[in-house]
């Protein structure tokens, strides 16, 4: 888990795992919440650079973390989302809360 989380000022950067399913999601959320409670986290950046697969459990991870910071004006961002991740973000409606930083998946 070392290196997965990094604080940049009040941004928590999360390097998302290669596969985000129900099996991975529980420990990922738990570890992220330790940072959210322990550090001065205002916003969260989900980095999908390594991620090759994500299902609705990954949506739960993002929404769950968003709920924890939204009441203090926090925002959630996604970087390096590939086509598959972008489809999940679109179909799930995550786009309403998740700010996409570089949409490399959308260059068709």
């Amino acid at each position, binding site marked *: 888990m070392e290196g997965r989380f990094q604080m940049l000022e009040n941004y928590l950067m999360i390097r998302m795992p290669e596969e985000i*399913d129900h099996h991975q999601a529980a420990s990922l959320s738990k570890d992220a919440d330790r940072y959210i409670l322990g550090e001065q986290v205002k916003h969260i950046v989900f980095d999908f650079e390594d991620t090759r697969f994500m*299902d*609705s459990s990954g949506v739960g991870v993002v929404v769950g973390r968003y709920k924890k910071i939204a009441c203090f004006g926090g925002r959630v961002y996604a970087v390096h989302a590939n086509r598959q991740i972008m489809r999940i973000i679109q179909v*799930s409606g995550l786009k309403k809360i998740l700010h996409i930083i570089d949409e490399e998946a959308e260059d068709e």
Partner: protein
Amino acid sequence: MNNEIKLIFDAISENEAFARVAVAAFMTPVNPTLEEIADVKTAVSEAVTNAIVHGYGDGPGKVTMYCALRDKRLHIEIMDTGRGIEDVEQAMEPLFTTGPGPERSGMGFSFMEAFMDELRVESKPGRGTRVVMEKTIAELPCACGED
């Protein structure tokens, strides 16, 4: 191409990835696009997760995955003999979830519906659930090796 497989595995979360990889391998002979593979993997992942989390409540049990190919038509069934669903129609509504906890997004059936051509859910309380999904793999205009 006609083929079928049946896999029976323990209802543990490690097997979610196993089921995805198995279905991806099973469908490769009909030359699916990367997107089609991703769609089917997502749908299978959702159905297997449902069986583990809701069917067996993270307790012991077996999940059966049956896959068949008839030409370009992919047919998948995910079955459990767990607690079943009282109201299938309600369970299939977007964002409906019985938990556990706030981490379930309630989008499993919506994803299966979005990523497959057809979705049918049969369930009997106390008996188990069968999820039937179908998808036609499109003809690829590529110069794939002819035998």
